[in-house]
């Protein structure tokens, strides 16, 4: 991937994994009903590597899609079971890409509508209403009711509910946050591998309760694989994935 390409990626903002996928498909001028899944998966992962995420949640959304793509890729590569009886079940019904295609088509519509709404918005923002606050007729303004059905009780209720919700939020935002640095997770994986020659993929995540922790661990693993510090082995299809030290 050249300099220019990397630069371009930085400029682009995707609204989510479906948006990125659509972009890749449209850029490659690929038939959406017949996605070359191997190629697209590789491109998706290449983008992912260069993307800067605003939050772990955002990263998790993209990682989930990456996992889905890899799963489809795996299913496409597997030999298809021979259908013995010639029932009406068509082949495309078994196409592992079908659900993804449906989601992409739906998302494409969402984008089209959003674009229509955006142009309506632009049109409508050019029409200014009479700014409120200054009543045309000062006398009638006094009789108007700015609060509607709301009572003092509702106001107090709103405030105390807000205060209640503040306490847990403070614990979340104000207290020292549990840090899930990828660096630390990398170190702890390596430390584990120093003690034992291999760990199962499953064991890596046991005891990790929060979503950010799991994502950080997964990212750490990917980084270690990229750095060739660890290797991943799977002895048989659907078998346990094993992580071990990289032996040159």
């Amino acid at each position, binding site marked *: 991937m050249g300099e220019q390409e990397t630069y371009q990626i930085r400029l682009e*903002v995707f*609204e*989510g*994994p*479906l*948006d990125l996928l659509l972009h890749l498909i449209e850029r490659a001028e690929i*038939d959406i*009903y*017949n996605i070359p899944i191997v190629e697209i998966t590789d491109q998706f992962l290449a983008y992912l590597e260069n993307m800067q995420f605003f939050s772990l*949640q*955002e990263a998790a*959304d993209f990682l989930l*899609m990456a996992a889905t793509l890899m799963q489809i890729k795996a299913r496409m590569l597997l030999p298809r079971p021979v259908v013995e009886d010639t029932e009406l079940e*068509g*082949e*495309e019904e078994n*196409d592992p890409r*079908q659900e993804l*295609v*449906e*989601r992409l*088509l*739906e*998302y494409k*519509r*969402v*984008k*089209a*509508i*959003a674009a*229509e*709404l*955006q142009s*309506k*918005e*632009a*049109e*409508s*923002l*050019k*029409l*200014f*209403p*009479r*700014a*409120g606050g200054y*009543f*045309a*007729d000062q006398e*009638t303004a006094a009789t108007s009711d700015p609060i509607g059905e709301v009572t003092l009780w509702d106001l107090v209720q709103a405030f105390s509910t807000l205060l209640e919700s503040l306490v847990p939020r403070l614990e979340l935002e104000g207290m020292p946050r549990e840090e899930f640095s990828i660096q630390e997770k990398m170190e702890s994986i390596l430390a584990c591998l120093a003690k034992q020659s291999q760990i199962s993929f499953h064991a890596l995540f046991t005891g990790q309760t929060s979503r950010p922790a799991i994502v950080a661990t997964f990212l750490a693993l990917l980084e270690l694989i990229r750095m060739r510090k660890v290797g991943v082995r799977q002895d048989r299809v659907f078998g346990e994935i094993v992580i071990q030290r990289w032996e040159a």
Partner: protein
Amino acid sequence: MNLRFATAVIEALIFASSEPVKSKEMATILELTEETVKELIRGLQQEYQENGRGIQIIEVAEGYQFLTNPECAPYVEKLKKVPRQPSLSQAALETLAIIAYKQPITRAEIEMLRGVRVDSSLSTLLERGLIQEAGRKDGPGRPILYVTTTDFLKYFGLNTLDDLPMVDDWSNNQQLAINLTAD
């Protein structure tokens, strides 16, 4: 009542209200038929249009409202005392598009369609009064359902939800007919 005066009253009513005024409401106040009121409004609209005025009467959210002429927008924008709203982000527009066409809809359903979490665009849309909660869906967790508001129609200059742009057959068909062809 003198129709000339009735027209003036209609003009005053539409002007004085901060919300679009329904013709039915004006008919009640004026003790005229809704048909007559609508006809007088049409005359008024034409008058404003023909004379190249700075304001016009527009039918929005099933009511009538004065709005400035779009050609004047570049000047109005320069005015200090005009409340301005920032336009919606791409994320908020996509979330709103889904709610508009599939309402009532839960957060999880929106997230399925967009492929990302939508908490922050939902709270933006709620805050701006473009959507609102509308009860809960039956089923596990009884999730909150979201629908668009009258302000949504006003914001996009739509008269009813039927004025939403048609996109393929999505607006008609809640269930998408996917035509998966074999290649």
